[in-house]
């Protein structure tokens, strides 16, 4: 009997051991295996460095600074120590003592959560990290991350865009170059998994798996640092001087379509983008449509010259007074009329009636294809994320009055980049270039050059020369001649367009602009300056033109172009 009981006990022991082994080996095997792996292996994410963005001279426009994420392991901190730790961390993270007290409450609530890991703060700089580390606080740690760094501050903000966080809390480029080239800039992160000993040191003969991180590509822009600086300074001065609501300027190299400068105000600090209203983020030079007003006259005149419908000395037959058309009265901007004036004078006087004459000569059938040739109704394909496309009305929706108003730049919408690209084609012998911000993309030892691209031909080369001469006269004899730098041949045209509000034009709210290029004989740059709702004067000749000439003066010195006088 005793033997029976002993056997039974042994049998029960055997069952218990088998059950336990079954529990460990079968039921809990995956969990235990992963726990063992966590003890033996270190899994680390390797961050890919976001590519840098450089000016054309190789100086940095945007790069990355190391930053850190501060985390805590609440289960390793005793409840009694948590309030003290929260207070200490808040002092390091927020320098303002009053705010630090509020923050310590937030941190304490995070530390009190029933979690193994909590994020306390992110984007901590190296100095703050050092200060915290010197205090040897238990239960906290750091993870390496990075933060975008802009040595030129808010320079080129809207062109550049910014780096924010997407819905998965991953850094992503938004707007401008950062948004357009996010795929190239961001790179691909890697992972490292290696066996560690009891002290956490790597075992060289142990297992090692690695997926190499691939850093983002660097972008070298066409943007000239000096020109950008000049343009921003002059534009800022003009914005204050003329009391304008907004201001923008674009400088382009006509022969290549390279964007040499692009600035707009009000702007924002890309490093602190979250402190600025979201409407500042869009780049008005590419995202905002406006009625170009008289600056558009040079394009319509060029079309008529190209079709051989007018010549510079052709006489206007309907310029003796206001024109009645489709129930509307079309007047000149100053209500002065010049009967039988030449086409040259139509541009010099910026005469709306003269342009109606040109528009009627062209007619919709000939005008419409030129609007398309100059790039209206199409994206310029500039390499910036936020380019807008103002629609070009379908041909069958145009009335006679629409052709008349379009001939002097009203009732038709363009973006500043469309306007400067179209005018730059006149400076480039009629070749329309695709505007480009990025010159080359560099990946380790490989460089991808972005070559200039001809999109089409707007007018014949000889017509481009003729319209250039007309624009030179418009500058030297027109309303803005007082501001023109002496001894330089500049081709340009002023524009003052009323802003359509609730179905009618507000006479006191205008968009004042100036578009042109210089030196007229061998253009080095084409430029557009636009002020929205200037207060000191509503006219482009008294606001945008002086700014254009101030910038041009400095560019002549920069390009070492001497005055003829």
């Amino acid at each position, binding site marked *: 009997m005793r033997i029976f009981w002993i056997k039974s006990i042994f049998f029960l022991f055997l069952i218990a051991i088998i059950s336990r082994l079954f529990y460990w080996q079968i039921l809990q095997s995956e969990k235990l295996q992963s726990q063992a792996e966590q003890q033996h292996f270190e899994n680390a994410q390797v961050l890919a460095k976001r590519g840098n963005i450089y000016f054309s001279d190789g*100086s940095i426009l945007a*790069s990355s600074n*190391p930053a850190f994420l501060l985390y805590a392991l609440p289960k390793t901190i005793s409840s009694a120590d948590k309030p003290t730790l929260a207070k200490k961390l808040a002092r390091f993270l927020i320098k303002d003592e009053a705010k630090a007290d509020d923050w310590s409450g937030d941190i304490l609530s995070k530390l009190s959560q029933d979690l193994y890991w909590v994020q306390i703060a992110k984007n901590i700089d190296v100095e703050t990290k050092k200060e915290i580390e010197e205090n040897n606080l238990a239960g906290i740690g750091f993870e390496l991350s990075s933060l975008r760094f802009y040595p030129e501050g808010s320079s080129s903000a809207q062109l550049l865009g910014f780096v924010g966080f997407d819905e998965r809390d991953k850094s992503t480029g938004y707007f401008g170059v950062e948004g357009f080239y996010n795929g190239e800039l961001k790179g691909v992160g890697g992972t490292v998994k290696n066996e560690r000993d009891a002290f956490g*040191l790597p*075992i060289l003969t142990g297992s090692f798996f690695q997926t190499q991180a691939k850093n983002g590509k660097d972008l070298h822009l066409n943007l000239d640092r000096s020109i950008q600086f000049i343009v921003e300074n002059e534009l800022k001065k003009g914005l204050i001087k003329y009391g304008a609501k907004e201001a923008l300027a674009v400088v382009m190299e006509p022969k290549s379509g390279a964007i040499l400068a692009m600035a707009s105000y009000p702007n924002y600090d890309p490093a602190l983008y979250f402190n600025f209203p979201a409407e500042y983020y869009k780049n008005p030079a590419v995202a905002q449509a406006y009625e170009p007003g008289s600056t558009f006259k040079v394009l319509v005149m060029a079309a008529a010259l190209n079709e051989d419908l007018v010549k510079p000395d052709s006489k206007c037959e309907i310029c003796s007074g206001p024109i009645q058309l489709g129930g509307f009265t079309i007047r000149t901007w100053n209500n002065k009329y010049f009967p039988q004036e030449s086409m040259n004078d139509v541009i010099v006087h910026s005469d709306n009636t003269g342009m109606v004459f040109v528009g009627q000569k062209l007619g919709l059938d000939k005008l419409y294809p030129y609007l398309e040739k100059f790039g209206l109704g199409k994206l310029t394909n500039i390499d910036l994320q936020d380019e807008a496309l103002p629609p070009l009305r379908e041909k069958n929706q145009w009335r006679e009055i629409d052709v008349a108003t379009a001939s002097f730049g009203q009732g038709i919408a363009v973006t500043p980049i469309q306007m400067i690209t179209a005018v730059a084609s006149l400076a480039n012998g009629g070749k329309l270039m695709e505007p480009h911000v990025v010159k080359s993309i560099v990946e380790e030892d490989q460089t991808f050059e972005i070559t200039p691209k001809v999109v089409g031909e707007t007018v014949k080369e000889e017509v481009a020369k003729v319209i250039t001469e007309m624009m030179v006269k418009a500058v030297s004899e027109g309303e803005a001649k007082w501001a023109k730098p002496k001894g330089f041949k500049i081709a340009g045209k002023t524009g003052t367009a009323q802003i359509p509000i609730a179905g009618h034009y507000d006479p006191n709210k205008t968009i004042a602009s100036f578009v042109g290029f210089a030196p007229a004989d061998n253009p080095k740059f084409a430029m557009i300056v636009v002020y929205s709702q200037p207060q000191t004067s509503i006219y482009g000749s008294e606001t945008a033109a002086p700014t254009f000439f101030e910038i041009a003066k400095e560019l002549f010195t920069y390009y070492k172009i001497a005055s003829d006088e």
Partner: protein
Amino acid sequence: MTIIKKFEPVKNEKGFSKKYILFSFLFILTLVILEIWIQNNMVLYGGKLEKISKLEESLEMENQLLENQIATQSSLTSLASKSAELGFSKVEKIQYIR
């Protein structure tokens, strides 16, 4: 009298001799000791590798910070304010030598 040699089968001498077994044992033992010695040394190198990796990381970080400091100091915004402090101003009228 004819002596007939007794026929005996030749002993197979191709098997492992004691000497050979001993030599193999010693060889394996040496290899085991060598492996233990190498493994021990490798553990020490693990620490060194960790140190070097950390140093590399901190030097890269320092490099990046210095590069950015240089960029800030040589930015046009900074140069313009420094030159203004030193009394430099923009040329108002340019004289051309012909």
